[in-house]
């Protein structure tokens, strides 16, 4: 049974005065309005650290209470920084299986009320116990991956700077972006070091934000064509590859198979650029270019909005901000809005028919890939 996105709302990302529940209610209310206030029988919520960072729990009843959805069923879904994509996938599976008719899918994170070192520690809880014991953080392990990538492929490290420059330029047109101001390569390359070789402007920010979609049975311009997820060894030292995420490759392969599509039919993508080097790894893992080739794509503009394969026309995590549990759903909102012709100044010059979203949980340990497009998609789920 096909499932499509009938309403898609992104909240403003940044330092917000509201708490997590208020952030979610705001986008949920707008999505229900856009969907014509038709009855919703499924309420699913994604968040990574609602308790530790957002200081709230029991999300579904709290939101049902505020959104007058006590008649629905629901659960909270967690897949670390991919929670927003995971909750979308869960809703698709429930609808495709015929267990619900219309779902309100919410995802959000409240991060800015805690000190940076505490946020870093909470996010690092996603890592392997041995990595936490060594004092590793997400940026630290991303830095190690970035170094391996540069050494293995001999790629120009300036490609990482080019990623940030491109996404910050795109974010200028995104009214919800935390960083709507452009930066130069020189500014990126001279920003302060966070985890060498990664600098501040290579790293996504600590952000508050939320997104909402209404999913319902049937087809439309943003029909779910395929979904797939993948897992990998928890610790970096147990991975067979250090310059590619196996979980991403597995998720992409499963999504393409589910959709009966190949990468060549995809017109654009929203990729998980929590760190600038990830954009390169992601582009390769999704199959859009070969191993080690992505640096050239970002350096020569191939991934810009008017390039041969647009990546993150919304500004990505680097431009939009990265409210961890919300980012996966924010990406899907952007893909759906491109397909639905609702992107305003972010609209791609060549109107796309099929878009891909990729969301990474943990340090490449749990990845969700979604394909949306016009048509009569049959989702195996």
């Amino acid at each position: 049974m096909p499932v499509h996105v009938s309403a898609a709302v992104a909240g403003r990302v940044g330092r917000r005065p509201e708490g997590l529940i208020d952030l979610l209610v705001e986008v949920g209310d707008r999505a229900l309005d856009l969907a014509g206030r038709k009855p919703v029988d499924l309420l699913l919520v994604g968040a990574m650290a609602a308790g530790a960072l957002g200081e709230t729990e029991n999300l579904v009843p709290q939101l049902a209470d505020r959104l007058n959805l006590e008649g629905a069923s629901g659960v909270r879904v967690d897949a670390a920084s991919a929670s927003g994509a995971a909750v979308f996938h869960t809703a698709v599976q429930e609808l495709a299986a015929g267990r619900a008719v219309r779902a309100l899918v919410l995802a959000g994170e409240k991060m800015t009320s805690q000190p940076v070192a505490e946020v870093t520690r909470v996010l690092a809880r996603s890592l392997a116990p041995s990595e936490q014991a060594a004092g590793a953080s997400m940026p630290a392990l991303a830095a190690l991956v970035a170094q391996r990538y540069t050494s293995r492929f001999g790629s120009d490290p300036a490609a990482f700077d080019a990623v940030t420059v491109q996404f910050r330029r795109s974010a200028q047109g995104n009214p919800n972006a935390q960083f709507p101001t452009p930066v130069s390569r020189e500014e990126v390359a001279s920003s302060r070091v966070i985890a060498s070789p990664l600098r501040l402007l290579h790293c996504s920010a600590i952000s508050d934000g939320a997104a909402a979609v209404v999913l319902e049975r049937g087809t439309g311009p943003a029909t779910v064509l395929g979904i797939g997820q993948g897992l990998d060894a928890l610790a970096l030292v147990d991975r067979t590859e250090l310059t590619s995420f196996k979980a991403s490759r597995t998720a992409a392969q499963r999504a393409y198979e589910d959709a009966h599509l190949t990468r060549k039919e995809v017109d654009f993508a929203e990729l998980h650029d929590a760190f600038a080097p990830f954009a390169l790894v992601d582009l390769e893992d999704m199959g859009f270019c070969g191993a080690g080739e992505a640096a050239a794509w970002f350096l020569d503009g191939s991934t810009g909005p008017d390039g041969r394969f647009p990546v993150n026309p919304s500004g990505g995590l680097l431009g939009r901000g990265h409210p961890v549990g919300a980012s996966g759903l924010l990406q899907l909102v952007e893909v759906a809005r491109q397909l639905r012709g609702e992107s305003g100044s972010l609209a791609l010059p060549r109107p796309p028919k099929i878009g891909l979203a990729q969301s990474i949980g943990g340090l490449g340990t749990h990845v969700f890939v979604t394909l949306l497009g016009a048509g009569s998609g049959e989702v195996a789920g």
Partner: protein
Amino acid sequence: MSEPNGLLVNGCTNCHSRYLPRPGRCPRCGSDRVSPLRIPARATVLAATELSVAPAGFATPHRLALLEASDGVRILAVARGPLPALGSVVNVMRDADVYLVVDEGTPVASPKPP
């Protein structure tokens, strides 16, 4: 200073992979035929990073190195001295549940800036 008797690792008698001790079955093949053995406590630096922001409870700058010892055993180790150079060979020791880069047998320099 190093581990005089070598580093304790797990060896899988089914797939022959070797890895740092951890509870449970072999992470590669799922076999429970795993036995302890020792390898030389020297490793090559695959990557190394210096953190200016560390998780709460860790002083900064905090330095980490991704190492490869013999038989493909990979180790995430804390470097309390200078950041070891990529490709250099270092000694490793275990201190409670953390591995440490304990000295630098080959010249040490900061990695090239990006």
